[in-house]
């Protein structure tokens, strides 16, 4: 059929604008450095508490062995070195996010790509999309450019919840910010609670990154990475039958 010949031709979509791509890669590097240096800082006192205070004689809700050198920045024990990395990239993270948010409001990236419609949250829709994920189908053939609902939820969760939470809980650890903005530390229920929240949020963004990388590989690593570099994404050809993908 003529349609078949038509669909066999590679079809490209301009999927990611320059601001999105730039921020994606700057942020990928930043999150990588923040996790590595943060784990080293954690190694200096690998215990977590709830409340205002917490030290060796107080009850810790979590106590971990030190993270190994392959996971930390620097790779040898150096709290001061880790702080150099962490405090530099903290500024990149915070001001990068601020700039990205402002530009993404202006270029309507948030409204167009991350806007969640009520119908998408209907259990039936979520279930259908979940089954599509299991079948390794990640986009709607009728509207291939659109993010699926799990993409929208996780990207919005990272951009609007997780990264702001990391920035604010990190700032809440600063003794000077405790004087400048006393509400900030109190929102978290004290400095040691803020430190625990900071660690949990780090664990969640690590989890996000691992799932994200896995899905990039499953969706076709070359095409996905190319689209985040050049902006152009090749619409995957439709499989002959659903059975093939499973």
């Amino acid at each position, binding site marked *: 059929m003529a349609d078949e010949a038509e669909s066999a031709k590679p079809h490209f979509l301009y999927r990611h604008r320059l601001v999105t791509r730039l921020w994606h890669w700057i942020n990928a590097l930043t999150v*990588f*450095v923040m996790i*590595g240096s943060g784990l080293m*800082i*954690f190694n*200096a*006192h690998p*215990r977590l508490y709830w409340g*205002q*205070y*917490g*030290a*060796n*004689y*107080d009850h810790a809700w979590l106590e971990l062995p030190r993270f190994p050198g*392959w*996971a*930390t*920045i*620097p*790779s*040898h024990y*150096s*709290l*001061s*070195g880790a*702080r*150099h*990395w962490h*405090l*530099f990239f*903290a*500024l990149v993270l915070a001001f990068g996010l601020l700039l990205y948010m402002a530009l993404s409001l202006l270029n309507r990236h948030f409204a167009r790509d991350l806007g969640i419609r009520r119908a998408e949250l209907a259990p039936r829709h979520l279930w259908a999309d979940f089954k599509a994920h299991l079948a390794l189908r990640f986009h709607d053939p009728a509207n291939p450019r659109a993010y699926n609902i799990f993409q929208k939820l996780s990207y919005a969760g990272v951009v609007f919840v997780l990264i702001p939470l990391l920035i604010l809980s990190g*700032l809440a*650890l*600063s*003794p*000077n*910010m*405790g*004087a*400048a*903005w*006393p509400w900030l*530390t109190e929102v978290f229920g004290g*400095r*040691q609670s803020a*430190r625990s929240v900071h660690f949990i949020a780090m664990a969640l963004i690590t989890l996000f990154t691992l799932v994200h*990388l896995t899905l990039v*590989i499953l969706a076709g690593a070359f095409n996905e990475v190319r689209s985040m570099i050049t902006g152009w994404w090749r619409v995957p050809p439709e499989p002959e039958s659903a059975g093939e993908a499973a």
Partner: protein
Amino acid sequence: MITRRNALILGAGGLLAGCDRFTDDPWLLSAEDAHRFLQRSVTGRAAKAREFRADQRSPFFRTNGTANPNTPEYNALAAGRFADWRLKVDGLVARPLSLSLAQLQSMPQRAQITRHDCVEGWSAIGKWQGPLLGTVLDLAGLRDTARYLVFHCADLLGGRPYYESIDLVDAFHPQTLLAWALNDRYLSVGHGAPVRLRVERQLGYKHAKYVMRIEAVASLAGIGGGKGGFWEDIAGYEWYAGI
């Protein structure tokens, strides 16, 4: 897939190790000045660290750093319950001082229950008491050229004397004390007897223990390793420890 995953892990490990050589690069260290500028911009000069109620204190306030200076000079002072200890205040001052513990205790006192935040991540809450550093500095009369105050301490770490320094913003802050009491008792040796600095908007290593001499200076360049403090000199910790 497994080999690809392994390649990713190896790649990540290699990237991490590759980071090591940048750890002391000037561009990385420039963040300290940026944080100091940003933080000072949003912080009132006299904005106070939170103060707590007595029942919010840590049940046990751990010590850190030097547990006991253990030099002959210090041991002799401690044996006499610091009756012979004198705090020297000199450098760029109009009237150099030599103050006994009793003299510090006879000045107007401030008591505050504050949170001590160690750079390592732990916190402890305790009640500190002593005269404001500002009271002592006013008595000595700082010269106009003075920009920093250097705290010379009785303890040696690895053979090097401990010292710290702060600028005038923190020196005249309404919570900056020369504390001689913790939780209504004289400071123990572990906590820095007879006097330690409290500079509540910065991390613990700025709170010099075993203070022997306060020197007003125009620049930190000629002192110790020139970076303004023991940990700053030997390990590259930030001089501005507000974060």
